[in-house]
């Protein structure tokens, strides 16, 4: 088995994301590239999961609430062996199990359907509460976007998480500052997000969202009686110079030339 550093793996995953989107000529590069390290910290460093037993009762549950970043999730699940890597190149095609947005009934390793923003985190709250109810000690991760948290539902979920003292719930924010129509501030200002989550009763952490060790440290920090919020400072389109911090790359597939340039920048053999 050849082991490569997580840094190298991050590049490989970014290249896989680009290849998927280039192949199907649709999808969301910006928000997929921004959460690579966040998902890597969960899947490679902290979560208790088993690719051979995707439905393991005691597994940690991972909810990609910003479901449009599904290519990142799929690339990692394939790398871990949940399904064959070749499947990636059929993303979004008719009859592929890899839907545009994650589908728990089609793709091994997907815990919750998402795509309609704001709902995943509410489902995650239900799963965390169910774990408490069953006296199980697995964890629930919910990854949300900074545009997504404009949904009122996200704050209803936050209220419930604190009310039920869900210290088995980790909410991770992909804080890339951008959504579809522009920056968060142009579209609908968020104010001080950490202060808001604190006021809702969360223990808050702020980390460099492209630093796997920093994210891992925040995930592992012990906590009791409160849900955890990790604000991951990221760049939309991270890793590809011409996509980085550009809201125009939210939902646009790369052309052949753009794809080749991006992969060359990453220095990954395809």
């Amino acid at each position, binding site marked *: 088995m050849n082991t490569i550093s997580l840094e190298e793996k991050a590049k490989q995953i970014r290249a896989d994301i680009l290849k998927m989107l280039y192949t199907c000529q649709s999808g969301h590069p910006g928000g997929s590239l921004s959460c690579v390290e966040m998902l890597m910290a969960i899947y490679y460093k902290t979560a208790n999961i088993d690719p051979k037993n995707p439905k393991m009762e005691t597994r940690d549950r991972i909810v990609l609430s910003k479901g449009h970043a599904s290519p990142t999730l799929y690339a990692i699940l394939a790398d871990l062996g949940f399904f064959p890597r070749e499947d990636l190149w059929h993303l979004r095609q008719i*009859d592929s199990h890899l839907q*545009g*947005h994650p589908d728990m009934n089609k793709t091994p390793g997907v815990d919750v359907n998402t795509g*309609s923003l704001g709902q995943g985190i509410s489902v995650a709250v239900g799963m965390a509460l169910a774990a408490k109810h069953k006296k199980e000690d697995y964890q629930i991760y919910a990854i949300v976007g900074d545009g997504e948290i404009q*949904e*009122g539902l996200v704050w209803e979920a936050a209220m419930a998480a604190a009310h039920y003292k869900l210290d088995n719930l980790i909410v991770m924010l992909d804080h890339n500052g951008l959504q579809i*129509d522009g920056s968060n501030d142009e579209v609908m200002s968020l104010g001080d997000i950490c202060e808001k989550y604190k006021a809702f009763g969360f223990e808050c952490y702020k980390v460099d969202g492209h630093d796997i060790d920093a994210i891992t440290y925040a995930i592992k920090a012990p906590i009791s009686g409160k849900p955890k919020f990790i604000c991951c400072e990221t760049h939309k389109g991270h890793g590809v110079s011409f996509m980085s911090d550009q809201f125009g790359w939210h939902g646009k597939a790369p052309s052949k030339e753009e794809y080749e340039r991006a992969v060359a920048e990453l220095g990954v053999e395809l």
Partner: protein
Amino acid sequence: MGQSLRVAYGEALRDLGAENDKIVVLDADLAHATMTSIFKEAYPDRFYNFGIAETNMMCAAAGFSHSGLIPFVSTFALFGAGRAYEQIRNSISYVNANVKLCLSHSGLCVGEDGGSHQSIEDIALMRVLPGMTIFVPCDPAEMKKAVRAASEINGPVYIRVARPICEDITTEDTPFIPGKANIIRDGKDVCIIAAGLMIPEAMQAARVLEKDGIDAAVVNMHTIKPIDSECVLQMAAKCKAIVTAEEHSIIGGLGSAVAEILAGKSDVKFSRVGVNDMFGKSGKPQDLFNAYGLNAENIINHCKSLLSKEI
């Protein structure tokens, strides 16, 4: 040359904005997809982005209308008619608020985003609301007329805005009278009643049927509510069979509306082409249309099968 309905929508809004300064436009972080961005560019001080918060936007639209303005609200059909349904029901429809819901990316033509984004139920949801007017335009020219007509109605209107580029079916001069269907092809054997993106498929079906000696009429039912029951009954009396075609669930949409008119009043042979009580999935729009039978071939099969059952 065809244009997408959403671009036609954006342009119609802009034109309307020039004439009427009471028009305001609300969007939920999808202005670049719904094409309200065209209005925003022309009238930035009459455009309000509500962020990814559709339920808030819907009630706020009611607030605008209570204050004498005419809000046009846009997001994807599923997140408007679906997610904000009860807000539309209680804050808009129940009080007859003068709000125009112009929701885009309806139906299977959304394609690759998949079943979570393909609204196959929006017409059903809007149709059960008393007082709601529902337009399903089939091409850019019709979209422009629908937007204008919506602004002239005092009450809630739902306009379904499909995503793809559409071929031109109507012309500048084709009349668009709310509640009055357009018979775009006359015939006496079978009548295909369609709306939106299924109109070109219905026309194609009629041309093929003609070669097989079957004389098919095509009705463009651009207004689903109030529906033109007179036209439906007239075609039922004249033809041996009626087939509806819609890019929507066969439950609750155009097919159901026509069935409700025919029940007890006509014994014409009848069947529905549409999404057969299942969800959509990812794929290219054309592949999906074929997989779900939203095409001329399936319409032809329905027509022939009804006519062959004739005694």
